[in-house]
């Protein structure tokens, strides 16, 4: 994967396959410790111990059509290549939480990429899934929640073009505000 937002999109598909209808995404930057942490928590069906143990193995998949599943193992490789690690917590019936850490200054750390496009494409395709996005940089935080938005627009689907456009601008503004000083370094990796 070329950037973290594409990894995120991939992991979100896992949540959707696990029948999650609520996913919270947290992206935290801490420049004092040089850490970037991406956390995705869903309320899907979760994994049993056996699957959890083997899930980072590329030859593990829940798919029955073939024997390879690369999503999680690719994210793990991206994190480890950049001085970080991948952690997964999951149990059957209690959803799954995936956390990937990266060392910001590591030359191999993937750029964030277009986070807004990832969120908006999920909203456009799966209007019934609730997404909660939190951006953190030191003491600054930004919050976006589809539940909040849906309250404001009752009667209109959340994937209505004008609503999507508003969401796109809102999240972009959040990214600029929160990551202001380190924006180029985080988003494009330069």
């Amino acid at each position, binding site marked *: *994967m070329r950037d973290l937002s*594409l990894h995120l*999109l*991939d992991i979100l*598909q896992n949540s959707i396959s696990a029948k999650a209808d609520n996913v919270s995404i947290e992206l935290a930057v801490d420049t004092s410790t040089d850490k970037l942490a991406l956390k995705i928590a869903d309320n899907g069906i979760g994994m049993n111990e056996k699957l959890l143990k083997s899930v980072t193995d590329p030859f593990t998949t829940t798919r029955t059509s073939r024997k390879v599943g690369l999503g999680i193992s690719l994210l793990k490789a991206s994190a480890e290549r950049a001085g970080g690690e991948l952690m997964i917590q999951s149990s059957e019936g209690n959803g799954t939480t995936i956390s990937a850490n990266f060392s910001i200054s590591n030359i191999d750390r993937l750029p964030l990429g277009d986070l807004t496009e990832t969120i908006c494409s999920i909203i456009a*395709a799966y209007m019934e899934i609730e997404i909660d996005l939190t951006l953190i940089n030191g003491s600054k935080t930004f919050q976006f929640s589809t539940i909040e938005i849906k309250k*404001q627009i009752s009667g209109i689907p959340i994937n*209505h073009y004008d*609503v999507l456009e508003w969401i796109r601008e809102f999240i972009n503004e959040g990214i600029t505000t929160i990551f202001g000083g380190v924006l180029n370094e985080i988003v494009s990796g330069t």
Partner: protein
Amino acid sequence: MKSLAELEEIRKKALDKINIRKENNGVRIVVGMATCGIAAGARPVMNTIVEELKKRNINDVTVTMTGCIGVCRLEPIVEVLDPDGSRVTYVNMTPEKAQHIVSEHIVNGRICLDYTIGEVEKKEKSKA
């Protein structure tokens, strides 16, 4: 700063339009968005489709995602499903081809034959 109050404006305007909107004609556009699709560039393809539909104010087409369709080497893959059950599978998609599909297939009802899985595979075979 964007404010939630703006959403109320959007809602009012949208509600007016929804009343005059015609029945959903039921065309579905499905984009393969598994690991293989994403890595091959499916996200910009899907967003281009949504953008193009928006530009033309087409409200009766559903755009959605699916997992791995099974021919990863031909990703990004886009399927157009008509309400009568017919299905066209487009492969090796790019944002440019996606624009073309919206204007030709969705708007004018003409299938973009060159981008279909059948044609692409035929060409591949003749090369081999």
